[in-house]
């Protein structure tokens, strides 16, 4: 566990250096902050905990000054239990408890986000007493809180501190590539799909069934998709198809459905999603068979062709479907009208001959 | 048309010259039908729960579609059975009190045991050992009466305890919780008794015993041939002649469809009944 802190501190150090290099915002710290720093600017200052772990009590002046709180808050706004020196006696079993001790402090100002976080899967674990569930400061930092999402890639990197595997996948995905290499701000980062504070458990069926709606937030957005000339019809064509129809009914059912049906992520992948043009993409014609087999064991050869790949049937694409449709569109009215006439004539004649 | 042909044939062959008398009225046949179906349903949904350790029980339970479904059907059939009981009581009340026909409470036409039944029984046993003639039965034999009262009592006990468990929350307002322990025990034990009795003894009387093998259709057709009446209910037969009530209840031979219908229902129920019987024995 301490290792994570080593990493963290390391990160901070680097950040510090860069900050020092760049123009440090000329923030004059409140006198009472200065007062605290009298002691706490001493780097070697640390607190030994019963667990044998040690907690550095050093506060980097630069960091705090440049943090978003630098010119707004003074120490005791968060450390509200401290009036002066000597500080009240406090006992923490271990490093984590120390951090947990300050968990509630953000609530004072950021009440909405705090309440949101109570619905999150992270809090669900925390409330069970799982010490490794992240707290505000684990993502936002403590004294060095900066505006979240600048740069946007920082968000993914923050999540990566725990979800390293997912991050590795994401970094390879079409979204991740665009974000990390093209610095593209349009692509989703973790929080766009999972949300930031009220992150829900993605293992639930409910979340599965929500994925079309999540993807459609961007892929249904005309303006955005034009930029990359992607079709916005994907959602509709999905919903009209067998899978989409099933999913939309499942999402209405109270009891969690007996079976599963394919949603966006089942074919396109979740974090490792690739451009459909990418030869490695799971939805590439060559790889499609494998994807289908995930749910349709023993489906082979031409089975993937059964899927119209989000296209409306046209004489060029899926002629067979198109013409069958056409024939019936003519045939049905013809028959129905014919029979109607026959009936009307019959009635008319019966009436006449009475 | 082929069916029709067979049908005509049978009509002409024999049966037409055979006289038939109404023994069981439609109402009772219907009640018996529903009773039979719901009882089987209750047994089929109840026994898997009682013998939950047996593999067949698990299979049945899962193939039916889960615990929710089992419970639903169990309650569903329970309601139907209760309905049958209510109808029967209603009938007794109407005939017995409204119409004032007390003969259903005593006398030969009644289900209420008489000393004769006791004698019949002894006589029957003596006949078993070849120590005498077969007893001469009246309208209802002693074992039929036993069947009847067994069901009647079972209906009260199983039904009562069943509803108590179904609406335990409601009953808990009046009785203490340990009563549910008793109810639970009685419900399952009495049910086992009923299931075994019906599927073993009752079915033997109706199907297996050589005189009736493969099946006694009277409960479905409601009609008994003169011959049978003479043979099996001599006392009633003579009584009817004496009261010359025979003509009043004379009727047509049971039509083929009716017999086939009876056979269809009868055999399917018997088969499933015996299956359940042996499964439960096996699971002991």
């Amino acid at each position: 566990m301490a290792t994570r802190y080593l990493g963290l501190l390391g990160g901070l150090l680097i950040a510090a250096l860069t900050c020092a290099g760049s123009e440090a915002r000329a923030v004059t710290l409140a006198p009472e902050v200065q007062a605290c720093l009298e002691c706490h600017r001493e780097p070697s200052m640390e607190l030994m905990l019963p667990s044998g772990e040690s907690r550095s009590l050093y506060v980097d002046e630069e960091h705090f000054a440049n943090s978003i709180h630098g010119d707004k808050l003074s120490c005791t706004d968060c450390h509200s239990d401290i009036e002066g020196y000597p500080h009240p006696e406090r006992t923490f079993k271990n490093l984590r408890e120390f951090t947990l001790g300050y968990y509630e402090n953000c609530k004072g100002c950021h009440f909405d986000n705090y309440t949101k976080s109570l619905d999150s899967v992270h809090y669900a674990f925390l409330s069970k007493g799982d010490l490794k569930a992240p707290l505000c400061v684990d993502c936002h930092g403590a004294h060095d809180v900066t505006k979240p999402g600048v740069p946007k890639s920082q968000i993914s990197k923050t999540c990566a501190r725990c979800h390293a595997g997912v991050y590795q996948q994401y970094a390879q995905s079409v979204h991740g590539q665009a974000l990390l290499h093209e610095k593209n701000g349009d692509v989703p980062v973790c929080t766009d799909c999972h949300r930031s504070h009220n992150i829900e458990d993605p293992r639930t069926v409910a979340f599965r069934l929500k994925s079309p709606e999540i993807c459609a937030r961007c892929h249904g957005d005309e303006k955005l998709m034009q930029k990359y000339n992607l079709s916005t019809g994907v959602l509709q064509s999905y919903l009209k198809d067998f899978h989409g129809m099933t999913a939309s009914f499942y999402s209405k059912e109270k009891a969690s459905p007996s079976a599963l049906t394919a949603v966006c992520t089942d074919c396109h992948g979740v974090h490792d999603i690739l451009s459909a043009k990418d030869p490695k993409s799971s939805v590439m014609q060559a790889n499609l068979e494998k994807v289908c087999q995930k749910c349709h064991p023993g489906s082979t050869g031409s089975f993937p062709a059964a899927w119209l790949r989000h296209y409306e049937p046209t004489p060029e694409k899926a002629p067979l479907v198109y013409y069958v449709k056409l024939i019936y569109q003519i045939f049905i009215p013809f028959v129905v009208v014919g029979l109607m006439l026959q009936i009307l004539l019959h009635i008319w004649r019966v009436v006449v001959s009475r | 048309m082929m069916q029709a042909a067979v049908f005509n044939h049978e009509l002409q062959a024999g049966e037409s010259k055979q006289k038939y008398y109404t023994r069981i009225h439609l109402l009772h046949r219907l009640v018996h039908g529903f009773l039979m179906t719901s009882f089987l349903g209750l047994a089929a949904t109840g026994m898997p729960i009682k013998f939950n350790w047996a593999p067949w029980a698990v299979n049945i339970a899962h193939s039916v579609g889960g615990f929710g479904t089992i419970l639903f059907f169990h309650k569903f059939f329970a309601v139907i059975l209760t309905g049958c009981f209510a109808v029967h009581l209603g009938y007794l009340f109407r005939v017995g009190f409204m119409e004032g026909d007390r003969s259903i409470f005593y006398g030969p036409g009644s289900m209420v045991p008489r000393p004769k039944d006791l004698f019949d029984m002894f006589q029957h046993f003596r006949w078993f050992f070849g120590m005498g003639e077969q007893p001469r039965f009246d309208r209802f034999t002693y074992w039929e009466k036993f069947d009847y009262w067994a069901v009647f009592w079972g209906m009260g006990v199983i039904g009562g305890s069943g509803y108590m468990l179904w609406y335990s929350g409601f009953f808990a307002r009046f009785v203490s919780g340990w009563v549910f322990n008793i109810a639970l025990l009685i419900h399952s034990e009495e049910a086992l008794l009923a299931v075994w009795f019906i599927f073993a003894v009752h079915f033997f009387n109706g199907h297996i015993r050589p005189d009736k093998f493969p099946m006694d259709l009277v409960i479905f057709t409601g009609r008994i041939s003169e011959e049978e009446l003479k043979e099996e209910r001599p006392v009633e037969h003579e009584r009817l002649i004496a009261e010359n009530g025979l003509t009043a209840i004379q009727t047509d031979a049971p039509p083929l469809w009716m017999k086939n219908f009876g056979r269809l229902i009868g055999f399917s129920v018997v088969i499933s009944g015996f299956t359940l019987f042996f499964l439960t024995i096996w699971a002991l």
Partner: protein
Amino acid sequence: MTHRKVGVFAASLLSIVLSHGAAFAEDVTNDTCLACHGAEDLTSAEGRVLYINSDAFTASVHSPLPCTSCHADIQVPHEEKPAPVAISTCAGCHGEAVAAYEKSVHGKAQANGANDAATCKNCHGSPHSIRKHTDPGSMVYSLNLPRACGACHGDPELAKRHGIPVVNAYQLYMDSIHGRALTGSGLLVAANCSSCHGFHDIQRRDNPDSKIFRTNVPSTCGSCHAGVQDLYFKGVHGEALNHGKKKAPVCIDCHTAHQIARVDTDPWKLRIISECGTCHEESLKTYRDTLHGQVTNLGFTPVARCSDCHGSHAVLPASNPDSSVSEQRVVATCQKCHADANANFAKFSPHADPADRERYPVLYYTAQFMTLLIIGTFAFFGLHTVLWLIRSLIEHRSGRSDRYFTGH
């Protein structure tokens, strides 16, 4: 923690080495060594590869060190077969780690001449390309550690040789909830081998100092699941453990050690019932007499299981007012499922035993009566039926009542 110290330690040592480094530097520098060992095809007489990949080395955490800081005895030219670098050399910098290792099960095994017991290299890889444990390239990086351990502990043969009780720990772990979280979705905080077994100081589970010694298990799991740990020690099981009752169940008795599964799946919910039953045999038997027990036995879970009434981690005796089955709280417990339950309702005894005359007299006598009733009925009608069958068969044999046969 130790890591941190080590870090500091290494740093200081490094500086020393660098300052004194000048001394050796005249005779043997890394370039001197790489002049020969930089050649990919350099092998010993027995064909052992002697090639040192300089890029890997520069990328490694040891890159600041000169070769001679470990291969101290080397002069140029050196003899055909220089003495192998002993573990004591590592101790030069990593004293604490080596000390811990030598006390550990691996260290002891090595000392007893089991040369297939793990040494530094087996877990950390070659010292020439070794990375920091926080570096995803490191063999002991959280996501890679199970593979490092699995190299030996996935091998049943080795387990047999050394009498290790769990023969395929690696495979089991990879399929457990922790293994899936770690390797499946790469969740760094998920427990890996070292989270429960420690690293340098791994001990056998029968060693009281071991993190997985029976009485230490709760605190080991508690290092992540602190909340559960607190609950556990509030309950009878935890208390019993504290009072030195060796048989008291600890985490792994219900959850298993390496095959820990999600607890919200039906198979687990059903298996755990018989798990309680291994100690509480009577209760399980009587539980099976009630609808709850019967339905779960059929394989359905919408009904109450042990934990639904007694709680899972903080199990308390009914005598304790805080217990979910105490007089004060039992009604509320029933109401979790039976919304209309009341005090009377709660008097239902889910573990009533019809054979126990003292505690449940009414039930006892009812049961007796029912049994008698059944036996009586079937004794009579069994006889009745059999006799009748025999008799009428005789009658038919003697052809006296053929006419009974349907009509003709």
